[in-house]
């Protein structure tokens, strides 16, 4: 049970741009790891460094126990990659592309290939030139998922898929997990990450800002509570950890830090609960709050600097 991916303090610069600025990422064997971050935050650059396509300027990178730059060819025997920007050879058919990649990777499983083509409802006899964005994405997905590789690296693999295909994709990833394979999933579709991922890393501006299980991340955030009580509850407003309290008649609405949730419910209980709705934070809220806060504080800092 080691780490399949270990990245520490990774730095990558393109001229004056510092695309990765001390990024950390650890993916354990057998887990599905969500890799989140806004556009341009460095997800794809990190993946390209992991694939040995870009050379790291600083920090350490280990992939399957090896150095991805110097041992890329050997390491690539054990992984399958689905790019976010799928670009195919216009004259080749989808089926030809899928077979080509299987052969280049060295693991051909015709049965699984045909099954995936069926499940994703792909017509493999069409020239790549005539495929829509979603169909190109399916070609890349079938090529990647048909392999028996122990590590799947998926860079926003479902950005062009419809909801039906999204469900097929989630099934496939669940199957990969049950087979004990490791998945690094970069994605913008938070529902997909919530449904699939054991752990997530959130990056921003080339740095990791959060990493852990979804539960542990939820611990760091707040739960929304709406309750109707017999009497107005006492002392809620003074409680540490309670934020944005609003009372209208017998109904109160507030957010509470997850660690203080039990105490807050105690107060409500003492006031006689008639109804209670408690919503754990969604990943989306965590994501938005995190970046919202960061953006707001950066904006303030920027304004301050501008004034000063």
């Amino acid at each position, binding site marked *: 049970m080691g780490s399949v991916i270990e990245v520490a303090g990774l730095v990558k610069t393109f001229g004056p741009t510092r695309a990765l600025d001390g990024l950390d990422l650890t993916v354990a064997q057998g887990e599905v790891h969500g890799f989140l971050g806004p556009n341009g935050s460095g997800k*794809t*650059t990190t993946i*390209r460094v992991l*694939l*040995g*396509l*870009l*050379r790291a300027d600083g920090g350490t990178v280990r992939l399957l126990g090896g150095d991805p730059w110097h041992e*890329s*060819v*050997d390491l*690539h*025997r054990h*992984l399958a*990659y689905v*790019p976010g*920007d799928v*670009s*195919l*050879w*216009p*004259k*080749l*058919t989808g*089926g*030809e*592309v*899928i*077979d*080509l*990649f299987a*052969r*280049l*990777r*060295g693991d051909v499983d015709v049965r699984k290939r045909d099954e995936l083509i069926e499940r994703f409802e792909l017509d*493999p*006899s*069409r*020239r790549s*030139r*005539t495929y829509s964005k979603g169909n190109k994405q399916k070609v*890349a997905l079938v*090529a990647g998922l048909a392999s028996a590789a122990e590590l799947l*690296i998926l860079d926003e693999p479902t950005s062009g898929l419809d909801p039906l295909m999204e469900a097929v994709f989630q099934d496939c990833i669940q199957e990969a997990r049950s087979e004990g394979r490791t998945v690094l999933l970069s994605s913008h579709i938070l529902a997909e990450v919530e449904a699939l991922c054991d752990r997530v890393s959130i990056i921003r501006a080339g740095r990791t800002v959060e990493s852990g299980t979804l539960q542990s991340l939820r611990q760091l955030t707040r739960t929304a509570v709406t309750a109707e009580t017999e009497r107005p509850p006492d002392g809620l407003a003074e409680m540490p950890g309670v934020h944005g309290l609003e009372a209208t008649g017998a109904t109160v609405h507030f957010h509470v830090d997850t660690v203080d949730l039990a105490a807050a419910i105690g107060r409500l209980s003492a006031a006689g609960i008639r109804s209670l709705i408690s919503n754990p934070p969604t990943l989306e809220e965590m994501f938005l709050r995190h970046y919202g806060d960061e953006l707001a504080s950066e904006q303030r800092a920027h304004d301050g600097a501008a004034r000063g």
Partner: protein
Amino acid sequence: MSALRGTAPLVRLILARDRLRLSAWVGGLVLLVIVSAISTKDIYSTQADLDRVAALSRDNPAALAFNGPDQALDTMGGQIAFQIGAFTLTMVGLMSVLLVGRATRGEEDSGRLELVRSMPVGRHAPLAAGLLVCAVASVVLGVLTAASLLAEDLPAHGSIVFGASFTAVALVFLGITAVTAQVAENPRVAAGIAGGVLGASYIVRAVGDVGNGAVSWLSPIGWAQKARPYAGEQWWPLLLCLVLGVGGVALAVVLADRRDFGAGMMAPKAGPAVAGPSLRSPLGLAVRLHRGAVLWWAFGVLVTAVTYGSLTSAIDDFVADNPEMLDLVASLGGASLTDSYLATSLLVLALLSAGPALQVLARLHAEESGLRAEPILATRTSRQAWMGSHLVVALGGSGLSMLLGGIGLGVAYALVGGDAGEVTRLGLASLGYLPAIWLLAGLALALFGLLPRWTAGAWVTLTGCLVIGMFGPLLDLPSWVVDLSPFQHTPAVPAVDLRLLPLAVLSTVTLALVATGFATFRARDLLTS
């Protein structure tokens, strides 16, 4: 005219993007005309010189085949028009083929045009804008050419007709490319078909000019030369060019109305759902990607070779009819005029055969920046294997073209009067040119490793070799410039004996360039856009 709405801003867009490319074409061609005119005046400074060269060229089928018909070669203007020749007119046509292809079909294929067409822009506006820019470039080229020749004190009427003949050829191929851009389903095929018509036009008029000139009437380049600049000008053949050009544009508009955006006239057919056995390695993929282009190049080289070969008998007759030529030939150091002609033909075939090598290697950069190399290099395919597979196709494709060229030249010569031994002799001689061709391929590979965005710069070196090889003596270039071309270091077999030392030196340089390409590509980041 809502179909043309938005043409003006699109014209500005093309000018903003391609102004350098447009000025390079027009400027380069005008410069070639000016330098040719000055050198011709320099070399043939007296009427006696002109009379002598006219007498030599008039009956020399090789000169007529390469340059054009015998029209007032004993006048300064006529001689200059002859020296600038059919080859330059072909370059003018090539300008139209490449510029029109790029401005119309190239934009559509890139997907950028889709966004443009979603705006309030008429159906024909992108085509109109592309053609308009290229038509203006054609007119500017003609005007500048005429003005340069006038500035050299050449007769006014002839200079204007000569400039107009440039514009006319440019407009013909503008029309032809506009049509192929509608018929073909992608820009490479569109430029390929139009380029094929251009090559055929050059060859057809070569055949005609060596004969009685009748066949030249089948070629637009022939029409341009039938306008007889400085030799009793006649404008009406240029009208044929104009009619063909305008007709092409009209046909293109009709065709554009009948096809879907992004598609050609031919509906795409379904292909194999499963990859064949050849598509199992990086080499298999490289062969598949380049097969069509390489075979077309080889076919073009073969056709050119057969044409040159079939003209060889005329050289033999020419020498037999002119006893004084034997003295001249003897003064050339023993090589027969026929062998000199064959060596020049092989040089032209070698320059053409470098084409497939450079086209294949330019694809390396296109594959990389188009993100198609990335998923391949994420498999267990090494960078060396990926790059090497394209190199193998480049070397093999150019080698195949050259060998076919040599054999084609030999077969055609044997058929018109040479003996059967010519096939082996010229087939083997063609191999002597491979080191120089492959050196250019090595240069392209080194550029790809060191400066990937400049991989296509290898075409500039080929153009340089072409100018040195075709115009070197005329332009009177300094010897160090001439020495830059690897083809100048290649023994001109069969006119001279084969020497191995220069070929070994060229091969060593090639190996060093290839090694540089591999080492630098292995050490750099992959381009990600």
